[in-house]
Every structure is written in C-alpha cells, then in structure tokens.
C-alpha cells in the first residue's frame, strides 16, 4: 500500500530537499520545447502530439494536403458584399462560422473525390483518319466482349418506327413502336421483361421513377403499365399526348399534347398538378432541364418556350429558328440548350443568359437531338446518326462519330452511365457504342446501375421522402434560399389571388329587411346613406380638426411674436 508516491512525498518534506523537481513527462514537454519551434509547429498542425511514443518526429505532420483545383470544383459562388458592420459581432460570428463550415465541407468533398477513380474514355483515330469513319463493327471487335455485346441491332420491322427510353440507372430499355408494340428489356442481359401490343398507335413511352412502371402515350389516353405488361391506369384526363418527360426528383410526369396542353401528373399521389394551355398548337417537341426541372417546348413558329407548373404563361420565350423547331435538348448541368429547326440549322444557347453561342448548318437538318451525360450531342438526319463533341466550346466542322441505321430515325437516347446510344428507327432498334458518352462514376445513393431489388426498395422510400414539391420549381433552382423582396402590396395581392377573395376588404353594408313597409326602396337608400363613406368621414373629421388646431396654434404664435416685438423702448417710435 505504501507506494512509491508516498516515498516521494516523504522525501520532499522530511528528508533533504532536492534541487530539481522530479521529472514528469507532462511537465517536461512544456519546458523542453522552445517557444519559436512550437509556434512553427502550431502553424502546421494544432492538435498533433508533440512526439510519438517511440520518440520519432512525424515526417509528414498535419493532415494530407488537398489539391487546390479539386477544392475549387466544390466551391460555391459567394458574393463580395458580405462584410458586416464593425460592431455586429453576432453577425460576424455567424458569417465566419458558415464560411468555416462550407470550407470544411469543400475540403472534405475534395478529399473524398479520390474515391471516384473511373475516367471517361474517347475514340482516337490514327493519323489522317477521321473518327467518324470508324464503323461500329470495328469498335465492337476492338473492345472487350462485354462492351462489344453492347452493340446490337433489334430487327423489328413490323410495328413501325420506335421510340425508346432508358431508365435512370441505365439498365432497362423501353421500346414503343408506332403501331402499338411496347417492350421492356433488361438490355445488358438482353432479357425481355415484357412485350405487349396495345392495339393502338403509340406516341411516346417513358419510364417512371423505377423500372417497375412505365407510361405509354397512346392514341387517345395516357396509360400506365407495370413491368409485367399489366395495365395499371388509364388516365383520361391526359388525352392526345404526343411527348412525355419524367422529372425524377419531383415525381412528375409532364406531358405535351396535340391540343396544346402541357400537363403535369404527380405519380406519387396520382393527381394532376397543373394543366397549362400553351396556346401554341400541337406540341411535339419537348425536353427537360434536369438542373431546374423546367420543361422546354419547341413550336412551329421557331420559338422555344420554358415552362414550370406554377405559371400559366411561359417563363421564357426564345426565338431560335426561322422555321419550326424540330428538336430540343438540354445538357445535364442546365447550362446549354441545343435546338434544331426546319431551317436546317442547329443552334447552341447558353440557357442561363439566353444568349446564342454557336450556330451550325446541317445540310439535311436534324430531326432528333440528344445530349449525353458528358456532353456529347447526337443528331439524327434521316437515317444517319451523327455524334458531336464539344459543340458549345469549339466550332465543330465534323462529327465525332457517324452511323447509318436502316430506317429513318424516330427516337434517340443516350444510355446513362454507359457509352451507349440507343437509336429507335423504322426497322427496329440499334444500340451504338459511343466512347466517352456516359458518366463513368455513378452515385450509388442516387442511381445505382447494380442495385439489387432490396436496394431499389430502400431507394424508392428515400426518394419519396425527399420528393420535391412542384411549387418549388422555378427558373433559378437557388431561389428558395433567397429572401423574398416583395412588398406588402404584392404579398397581399398574392394572398388575394390564392384565396380567391380579399380577406381585408370591408363588407358591403346591406340594410336589414324590415317589415311594415319600412324596407321600401327609399327607406333602404336612406339607411344606406347613413353609413355611406363612414371611414372617409372619420378621416375627414380628423384632418379638419388637425387643420383647425394648427391654425389656432399659428395664430397664438403670431400673437406672442407681436407681443414680444412690441416690447421695446418707448423712444422706439421715433426711430426711422
């Protein structure tokens, strides 16, 4: 029990006193270090221990460095006019706190960026060889078997030109033949999920949020089927639909009809969110901006209009072509829009500033446009599919790739997360290999091509919980974070519009009905007159009183003034 501790105690007091204190490692660390050295260290790393147990100094002190350009990628734009007033300490604290947080988030994101190892490839020709002359067969032979198997043709000449759609993960393909043939395929395994004939003309097909359901725009109504080919719904409210777009984060199916209506269907609750009459005739050109969920419509008068479900008129109307617009496509980042028109031109717009960037002349015009995740543009002219690279930054004179299919191209779609372009045409379907088209790194929480059924169910629940309400769709996706600068009048007007009546409006006076002839027209009028302009009366009364008061005050002041001025010497009267 009498430990060493006691021994030292005794020594300190009873025995001879030592000149030196007993060495203690926690004290030594403080005394031994020179201040200058310490400061230097602190700059590098604050929480690092001074020395490791083995006594060796850390050769790489501090956290691992992050490349600045990587951090830059995750930076969010900050405005300059932020400096708070000198005395506003609370605000200063908030601003510095958020700044620190966001910087930390950026740095972490940049650190984790290492975990996205895949890089996009591209096709490179020999010297004096155009990449556009390389045929698909050559590519398929050159690449590995799995990738080579992704080039295939489906010969479906019976049921007319095909439209197609890939689902969000890129695993499943939906084909809709003009003459009623609808098929969904797990295209990588080439496994047919279902195949039906709806016995009606099919205008468009679209996957809904999962591969379990898809919508088919048929001759009259809009139908929803499941992956077994069973008809789930026939939506009579949506008639004559020509084109469809699905907004995955809002669970909205947007449809454009031949009658000029743009309708939104919330597929999570099955309700029509908005029906907008565009007043511009048949709508057969449509695409979505995946950045802000705005729908772009092309019109025969050369304009492209932008729509949200919250406004009955077009948000923006752009005059793009002198002829009708044939096709529109918007890139993944929501920066560029590519349009093609009847005037055989293909134009690139900066959709944030609504300014034209590039204009190309295609001798035969482009009937279908599609943009891949990495910004490759595919354009179909007749039966030729051309793919372009970098249409917005450098002026392009030649396509990156070209391929001739058997019939006229009817539908064109890049497969997400794959270097594959699906082409639906008169003679069936062609899956083309386009190196560098798909995004090599996928977000497993968002769209996982390799997910299991269980994972899909989990994802579905989460996605439904995180569903964005349709009211939040606007041109600027950051608008929710801004302060609404509307004044009171505007806000009141909004309220009136939302309620349908003015809650602050004064009720009109209606005289009570009285019997015995006292509600004769004259009497009623007299009674009305009694209360007419009652509010105004008060105001007038007040104003008059105030006026009187002021007048009285003025008079009194004047009197005082004169009294004061009269107080003068008796001899003043002789003054000149």
């Amino acid at each position, binding site marked *: 029990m009498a430990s060493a501790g006691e021994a030292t105690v005794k020594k300190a007091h009873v025995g001879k006193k030592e000149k030196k204190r007993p060495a203690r490692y926690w004290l030594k660390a403080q005394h031994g270090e020179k201040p200058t050295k310490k400061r230097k260290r602190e700059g590098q790393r604050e929480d690092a221990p001074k020395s490791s147990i083995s006594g060796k100094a850390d050769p790489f002190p501090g956290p691992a460095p992050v490349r600045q350009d990587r951090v830059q990628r995750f930076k969010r734009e*900050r405005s300059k006019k932020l400096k708070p007033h000198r005395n506003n300490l609370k605000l200063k604290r908030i601003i510095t706190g958020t700044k620190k947080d966001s910087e930390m988030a950026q740095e972490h994101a940049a650190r984790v960026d290492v975990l996205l190892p895949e890089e996009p490839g591209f096709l490179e020709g020999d010297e004096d060889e155009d990449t556009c002359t390389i045929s698909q067969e050559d590519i398929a032979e050159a690449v590995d078997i799995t990738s080579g198997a992704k080039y295939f043709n489906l010969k479906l000449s019976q049921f007319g030109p095909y439209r197609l759609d890939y689902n969000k993960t890129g695993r499943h393909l939906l084909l809709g033949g003009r003459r009623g043939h609808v098929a969904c395929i797990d295209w990588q395994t080439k496994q047919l999920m279902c195949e039906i004939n709806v016995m009606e003309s099919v205008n468009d097909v679209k996957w809904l949020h999962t591969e379990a359901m898809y919508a088919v725009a048929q001759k009259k109504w809009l139908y929803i089927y499941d992956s077994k080919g069973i008809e789930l719904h026939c939506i009579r409210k949506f008639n004559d639909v020509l084109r469809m777009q699905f907004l995955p984060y809002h669970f909205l199916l947007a449809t454009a009809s031949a009658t000029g209506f743009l309708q939104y269907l919330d597929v999570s609750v099955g309700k029509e969110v908005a029906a907008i009459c565009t007043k511009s005739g*048949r709508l057969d050109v449509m695409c979505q901006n995946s950045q802000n969920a705005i729908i772009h419509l092309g019109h025969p008068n050369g304009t492209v209009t932008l729509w949200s479900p919250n406004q009955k008129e077009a948000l923006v109307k752009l005059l793009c072509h002198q002829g009708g617009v044939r096709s529109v496509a918007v890139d993944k980042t929501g920066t560029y829009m590519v349009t093609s028109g009847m005037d055989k031109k293909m134009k690139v717009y900066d959709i944030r500033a609504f300014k034209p960037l590039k204009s*190309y*002349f295609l001798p035969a015009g482009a009937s279908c446009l599609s943009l891949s995740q990495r910004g490759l543009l595919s354009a179909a002219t007749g039966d030729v599919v051309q793919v372009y690279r970098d249409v917005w930054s450098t002026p392009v*004179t030649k396509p990156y790739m070209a391929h001739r299919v058997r019939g*006229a191209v009817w539908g064109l779609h890049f497969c997400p997360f794959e270097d594959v372009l699906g082409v639906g045409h008169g003679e069936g379907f062609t899956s083309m290999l386009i190196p560098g088209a798909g995004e090599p790194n996928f977000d497993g929480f968002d769209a996982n091509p390799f997910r299991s059924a269980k994972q899909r169910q989990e994802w579905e629940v989460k996605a439904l919980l995180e569903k964005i309400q349709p009211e939040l769709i606007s041109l600027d996706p950051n608008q929710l974070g801004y*302060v609404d600068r509307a004044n009171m009048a505007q806000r009141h007007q909004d309220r009136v519009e939302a309620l349908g009546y003015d809650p602050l409006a004064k009720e009109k006076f209606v005289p009570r009905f009285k019997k015995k002839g006292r509600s004769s027209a004259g009497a009623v009028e007299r009674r009305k007159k009694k209360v007419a302009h009652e509010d105004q009366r008060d105001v007038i009364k007040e104003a008059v009183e105030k006026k009187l008061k002021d007048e009285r005050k003025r008079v009194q002041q004047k009197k005082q003034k004169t009294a004061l001025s009269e107080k003068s010497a008796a001899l003043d009267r002789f003054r000149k």
Partner: protein
Amino acid sequence: MANRSKKKAKKERKKSAASKSNVIFDDEDDRDLKEGDENIISEEEEEGDGDERKRQKLLEAISALGGKRKKKFGERSEAAVQMSEFTVNAQGNDDKIDLSDLLGTMEKTPAVSTKTKKQLKNLQQGKMTIESPISKQASERIQRNLAFQKAAADVSRWSGIIRQNRKAEQLIFPLNQEPSGPKTMEKIVTGWKAQTPLEQEVFALLSANNQPINDPILTPAEEASLKAMSLAEAKIRRAELQKARALQSYYEAKARRERKIKSKKYHKVHNKNKGKEFLKQFEEMVKTNPAGALEELNKMELARMQERMSLKHQNSGKWAKSKAIMAKYDEGARKAMQQQLELNKELTHKLTTSLHKDEEEEKDAAEEEVMPSFVNDAEQVLDPSNPWMRGKLSEDLAHDENVVVNVPSVVAAAPENTAEEEDEIVETEEETLLREFNSRRKLRQGENPDTGLVMSVDDKEEDHEAAADASELEEQELSEFTNILKGLAHNQCDADAEASAGNCDTQLDKPHDDLELLDQETVTDEAPVQPHSAPSTNNPQPSTEKEGKKRKRKRGIEITKVLTKETNPIQVPLIPTVQETEDTDEKMDQRCLIKEAFAGDDVVSDFLRDKKKQEEEGKPKVVDLLLPGWGEWGGIGLKPSRHKRKRFRIKTAPPPPRKDQHLPTVIISEKRNRSMSSHQVNCLPSPFENHLQFESTMRSPLGRTWNTERTIKKLTKPKVVTRLGAIIEPMAQEELMKDQKAESESSVASGKKRRKNNAK
C-alpha cells in the same frame, strides 16, 4: 398673597401638565380639571382667555359629537405671563430663546468649570446647523441602490463565462468533467488514506505538528494570496493601466509629430485655430468664471505689454533688416515683412471683450449717428438666378442668354422655345450666330426623313453633329470643318444604308435558299452550303457594331438584327438516303402544316410584335380621373384645359427595367412566382444587415446528397450533449476561474520552488 401666588403657580403647573398631556387625554378629563379650578380662577384677569379656550373646546366637542370622531392634533401651549422657574418661556418680544441668553448667567456662576465654559463658548460660536437626518425612504433607497450595485457586480462576473457558453458550438453537460489524461501525483495522494497503523501514526504526528501531510502545490499563504485578488481582476486592473499608458503615449507621440511638422502654413493655421478656440473658451469663461477670465485678461495684457516693450516683431531685428534690404527686389521678402508687421499689429492690438462692453456700447451709440441711414434698410435680396433683379450691364445679360441658348441647341429640345429666346437677343453678333444654328437645324430636320430608314446610323450621325455643334459654339469659325464632317457623315450614312439594304435582300433570299436546299437535299451537300454562307458571313460585322450603338440609345429592335448569328457548316460523311416519313397524323391541322411550310417569313416580326405587346402590358397605365365639365364648360368640341388634364392624370412610377431589355430574341416573363414566395423567407432575420449576407449563409447545403458523411456529422452535431444519468449541477464559483487557475498553477508552483530555495 403668598398663598395666592402658590395657588397660581400650582394652577399653572397643572394647566401646563394638562395641556402637555392633552395630546392623549380626552376632553372629559380636561373638563373635570377645569371645573375644579373654576372657582379659583373666576376672578382672574385671564378670564377672557379662559373663555375663549372654553368656547373653542366646546365647539370642538360639539363638532366631535356630530360626525365621525376626528383624531385631534396635539396642542402645545406655554404658560402665559409669569415666568416659571421650571419651564422655558417663549412668549416675549422675540419668541426664540438664544443660547447667549442662557449663557449670560454662566459667567457669573463660579461653579461651572472652565472646560464646560469653553465648550459652551465653542458651541455658541459654531453657527453650523445640524443637517436633518435623511428620511427613511431616501436612506433605504440608497441602501437598495448600493445593494443592487454589489449584486450586479457579483452577477456580472458570470457574464463572460455565459457568453462563452452561448457562443460555444457544443456544450457537454455536466460541465466539470474530470479531464482525461494523466493526473498529477498530488491529486492521487490526497485521495488516498492511511490505513496501516504505522501510517496512521505518522499522519497523526504530522497533523498534530501542523505539518502538511502531502506535498501541496500551494502553501496556505499562497492560496490566501491567490484568493485576495483573483487573476481576472488583476488582469483587468493591468489592462486599465495599460490603456491609460497607451493613451498617454499616443498623445505624446501626436504632440511630438505635430511639433516636428515644418510646414509654416500648417502651424499658422494651427495657431489660428488655437487662438479661436481660446477666444471661445475665454468667452465662456467670462460667463461662468469671471474671476478666472479677469486673470486671463491680465495675462493677455501682460503679454501685450511685453510685446510692445520688446522689438520682437518689428523691423529692427536682424532678420527683418536683411529682409528689408531684399524687399526691394524680392516680392517674397516683402510679403514676409508685411506679415511680420501684421503679426505685430495683431499682438499689440488691445483686446476688447464683453468686460469692456459698456465703454464700447457708448462708442457704438456715438458711431451710429454718424452712419448713413441706408445701413438700416432691409438688405436687397439679390437672386443670383434672376438676371433682371441684378443691376448688371447688358454684356452680362447677353452672356447669360448665350448659356441659355446653348443648352437646348445641344440637347435639341423644343424648337419654339429657342425661337422665342432668339428674339430677345439684341446684339448682332449673337444674332447671326443663332441664325446660323437655326438654319442648320432646319437643314438637319430636312435630312431626317431620308435617314429615318436606317435608324442606328442616324443616331450616330446625330451624335456627330451634336459634338460638332458644341465645338462650334466655343469657337467662332465653324463652316469649313463642319461641312467636311457633314459630308463624311453623309457618305457613311449612304454606305450603311446600302449595306443594310443588302442585308434585307439576303434576309429575303434566305427562304428561297432553303427551298432550294430542300430540292437539292438528295443530290449533294457541298453545293448548297456555299451560297448561303457567303451573305451570312457578311452579316455579323455591321450588326455587332449596331448593337454597340443600341446599348447607348434604346430604340425598337430592328428585324435585321435578329437571328444573325454566324453559322458553321458541318460536313457530314454519310448522306441520308431515306426520306423522312412525315408525321402521319391525320388530325394535324392544315393551317399548321401551311404555317410550318412557309415559316421564316414573318416569324421574326411576329415575335417582335409579341415582345412589344408584352412590354406594353408591363408598363403601368396612366389613370385619367378627369371629369369634363367640372369647373369649366364642357361639351362637344370643347377640350378641358391643359392644366386640368395634367392635374387629374395619375402617373405611376415606371417599373424596373425588364430582364430581357438587351436580348432581342427573348421574352422573359416578369410575373412573380407566387408559389415559391410562400416558402421563402420574406423578411431579413435579425442580425443580418443585407440580403446577401443571409443568402450566403443559406447557400451551402447540409444534406447527405451534397456532403460527405463526416461533414454532415460535423455540421449537424447537437448544440447540447448530456450524459445519460449524470447529474447536472449549477455552475460553481470555481468554474469562473477554472482555466485561469489551471494556468496559474504551474507558474505558482515553480515560483514556490524558487522561494523555498531562497529561504534556504
């Protein structure tokens, strides 16, 4: 007699006693007493007095019978005529008794000791009145105040730690957790108890001899000293001292700096300011502290006398003499001399202040009579803007006129206005000049119709001319230069017009081209490219130039400027062989088909019309509340007067500029997004000063979609963490100084070691 006098004395005593006790006694007692005495005093001369009193009493008694019983105030009365040996009489010539009256006899009585005499004398001399004690309320208030201050000081010691805790990103309760890590030996030892008999004995011995049982970090004395003044207080004190020292040093440095400045002008201005300030202070002093002011005045007078006596600022010094020699040739020297003399004058000038005012006023009165009478007249209000009110000569007027004319001619505003003004000009030169302007203006107006075709070019020309006009006004000779310039402008205009005409042609040609292309589609791709690209490459240059102009002066959008982006032809290696099957929808509107086929002709103009319409709709409308016939005659053919129309027209402020102002081919809807606004923050939250600050703090997202897991954990960590089952006690006094103590511990420990060594 003696008996009688005794009786009287007795009676008086009784009376006084009665009257003294009257405060408490009832009336009845008094009455009894009076009845007893009545026969004795009946024939006395103060019968009247007694009657009076009685009457009073009676009245009081009656009044008391009536209403509620009032509490009576005590009545103090003194015995009347006779002087009693026991009581002090205050009735006499002056009611107050002076101390000296009483002390008069003291001198004579030898029994009184000298000491008491002295004391009494001192008392007599001291005229100080003793202040009345403060009222209870006031004293309580003061005490309360003091107590509050003390309590406030006590509580405010916590404010620092509270603020710190509020600011802290995360608080973990209970707060006073044991710090993890190695513990000091002493702490372990104190927790340990002696158990074996030997240990117990040793410790008993130690404690009996008042020896420290273990090695404490602090001796009791040190602990006491620590408690005496806390570190924080000491720091505060030191900080105060430091601040004072710093301020002093700043002030000194400033003074030094100012002294070092070599600029004479600076010092002059500085001294002048000082003098002014001093004067101001002096005037104030005159009001508040006349004695001090007089002293100051004397000082000034002395200084003046000294100045007068000395030859300091006169022309007899060495410097002055040298300057006087130089003064003939050097103007600077002359000036310096003059300045010095002025200074002398100033310094020797007799001061006049309000103290001497009386004399001055007399002087003033004398002067007033001498002054001419118009001094008292109201000052003429000379309107600088009104040339008629100024008694100026015609030259100036003409000059003014010139300026007035200048402005409209440059701006090219209402022509009739200038015409009126032209008439007024008398002088011939100006007239000729103006006539020339007029003719030129007319000429220009004549030109306008043909240049109207090409608006933007016209703009440019106008600019040129305006510039030319301005230059002409300044210089008299004008003709040749402008002629040349005009010729140039004309040429350019013609050229531009031709170019634009060409443009139009190409625009018109385009559809034809398209049609041709449609025909040739199947044949080749190279051939149709060339004719189309040739005109289109020509287009952009003038259009960009025009756009630059348009930004300056906004007019309608020209059709020719829309959709003139340069196109890049693309060579396609494969030629489509299959003719596209047209949309085989039977229901497609016939008109729609036709429209598609012949699109391109009026698409642009349709769009521009649409845009214009939207712009018009966005503009606020002028509300006309005019009721014709009110206040004047009304009827067919009668127009209400301009004044009336103007008065009843309500104009609203123009809306902010449209977002698509500079985008000719875009219509951006200006409608408010109502659905979003209900989810937005609609007024700036408290500490933020502007919207941008708030928005920047809202910008970085928190969700899992945008952040790494570690970031989310850090960003969303709870503000308060409590350990399950731990008791959270209120903060103890030690918490205040915890960190400071931890800091001081080590330093004190080392200090103690040193001291011990010294003692040895």
